[in-house]
């Protein structure tokens, strides 16, 4: 087994998955169902990836929960992406160092 063949297989498969729909679907989709479906995909996908994965992203569930709570509040107040990310990060830092 050659590591460079592994890397090649990984890279090619991953790229093809990303590229084919984008390169091949040229026309605007008119089906209301598909349009609605695609409209909801980002939210469904990002929500599924965020929770509960966020709770396992730090050293302890508690510091992660603190970061999660702070991020939810900041996002609810419509802070920018970077601001929300940094506030969550600071909350985790404080929770792990000082509590």
């Amino acid at each position, binding site marked *: *087994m050659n*590591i*460079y*063949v*592994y*890397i090649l*297989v*990984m*890279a090619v*498969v*991953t*790229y093809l998955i*990303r*590229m084919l*729909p*984008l*390169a*091949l*679907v*040229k026309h605007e*989709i008119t089906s209301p*169902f*598909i*349009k*609605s*479906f*695609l*409209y*909801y*995909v*980002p*939210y*469904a*996908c*990002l*929500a*599924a*990836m*965020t*929770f509960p*994965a*966020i709770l396992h*992203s*730090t050293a302890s569930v508690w*510091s992660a929960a603190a*970061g*999660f709570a702070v*991020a939810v509040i900041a*996002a*609810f107040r*419509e*802070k920018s*992406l*970077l601001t*929300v*990310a940094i506030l*969550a*990060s600071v909350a*985790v*830092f404080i929770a792990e160092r000082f509590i």
Partner: protein
Amino acid sequence: MTKAESFYMGVKNGIPIGLGYFAVSFSFGIMAVSGGIGIGQAVLISLTNLTSAGQFAGLDIILAAGTYVEMALTQLIINLRYCLMSFSLSQKLMRDEGRIHRFFAAFGITDEIFGVTASQKGMVSAWFMYGLMSVAIPGWTLGTLAGGISGSILPGYIVSALCIMIYGMFLAIIIPPAKKEKPILAVVLASMAISTLFDTVPLLRNVSSGFVIIITTLLVAGLAALIFPVKEAEKSAGEEAEA
């Protein structure tokens, strides 16, 4: 917006992605090198794959000397969500740009780059994605390099604090529109509930993380499309996200 403005906007939006990537790929670098893979090879994996779950799974297969077919299938399943995202972006990228841009922009379809691109208002230029990629790809690649070299440059609590940034960003993308549109709120809560089931219920826990995302997305977005069809003909994926 000109190409340069789109690119600049992308760079600006890409900074939190790049920082978050640095942290995540840092841990990939540590794991790869401690498993016995060369630093250069670990960096090559990050540069050519640009994906977290797929790389961590791929690393396991390399270290266990799995077959190439197993590698291909695992990548296909874990990264199949990119296919949905790519499909969604095919409706989002400007049509007057050459097809060649779609080949280049496609390389940058990751969870985060997709999330930020889909949340832009209206149609998006490939240059916006190039802007995101110009920060995200170095962040991802250099993070692996730093992790591989240092092993433990940063204390654990710093790595922890950096790792949560990606999720903070996701929340900043999905929560504001969920506040304004009830169907989106329902989608967000349902997705989180279903992925929590996959994380906790005994048999469901065996489903790989890539599959959980695919199943949840198809199920929730499909049901939402049936229950809350998007009325306006003009509305395309994510258009309202930052309205």
